[in-house]
């Protein structure tokens, strides 16, 4: 075997598992466009928040059993106290009233896929239904 051919083996051995890993990583994390445009500057690209100033999204009841309240929370904003789990937080979040139903659906799906606890399957119909119940 020529040295040229001998060298091809290690290259293949490195490339193959790398390709396998890459294809395995391609899980569906949703479309980050709306999140990155409107939310990431405060809540962080990874939903990590900023100390006690902007809450992390990684452990939120609004991405669990209270997900139905989330569209209203996003479109009306928050000014004052909100209760999540057994904690009360004083929050000021701007209203994002201009998001379309499609954008809202895409955003909440992204939040749920990345930091949610699964469960509820979302749709534009469901989002508009929830938005009609806003206080």
């Amino acid at each position, binding site marked *: 075997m020529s040295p*040229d051919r001998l*060298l091809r083996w290690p290259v293949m051995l490195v490339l193959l598992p790398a390709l396998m890993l890459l294809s395995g990583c391609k899980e569906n994390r949703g479309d980050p466009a709306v999140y990155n445009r409107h939310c990431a*500057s*405060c809540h962080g690209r990874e939903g990590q928040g900023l*100390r006690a100033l*902007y809450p992390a999204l990684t452990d939120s009841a609004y991405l669990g059993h209270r997900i139905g309240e989330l569209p209203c929370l996003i479109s009306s904003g928050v000014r004052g106290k909100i209760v999540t789990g057994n904690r009360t937080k004083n929050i000021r979040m701007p209203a994002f009233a201009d998001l379309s139903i499609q954008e809202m659906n895409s955003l909440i799906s992204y939040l749920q896929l990345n930091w949610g606890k699964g469960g509820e399957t979302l749709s534009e119909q469901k989002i508009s239904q929830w938005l009609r119940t806003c206080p």
Partner: protein
Amino acid sequence: MLIFNLEKDSKVQIWAGLLMVVLTMISLGCDQSSREPLPVIGTIDIPYTFTDQQNRQIGQELFQGKIYVADFFFTSCPTICPIMKSQMLRIYEKFKDNDQFLLLSHSIDPEHDTVEVLNDFAARLAIEADSWHLVTGVKEEIYDTAFRYGLAAMEDKNAPGGFIHSGSFTLVDRQGKIRGYYKGTEEEAVDRLIKDIGRLIDEP
């Protein structure tokens, strides 16, 4: 596959040689620039007094003989401020115990950002008031101060949050001279700022 082809040994050597030359040039270039002092861009002269989150009067005399970084923000800012503040926190964590160094953030929405609001903001960020002053004051004086720091700030009802302002940080030395501007929204720029603060600390 050039690199793995032993028959083209000489080409590999040429490429490796070129790479070495480029790397040497880059490293020499870096050495050169870090030996030169930072440029002097301007002199700070602020004739106003502002009020910080602890309700203390803050004038320019507090910064005499100190190296500091100044910026402009507002607490309800929905766009670049949160990123600026998370970058400013990196600087704070690095130098908070250095008594030669201070941070100064001016609110450009002083009507909303009262001492109480700034105090709450500081508490949520868990920052010490002696190392990082968040100040409020007369709006026109704050806007003029931004201009004196070489940064832009103005009201604009059409902008998100109602204000437009620069996302940059201004670095000021012990003699009150401006020594650099850094994009407060970019991690790499703030890495450079952290290095430059170290260089000013080492200046006699």
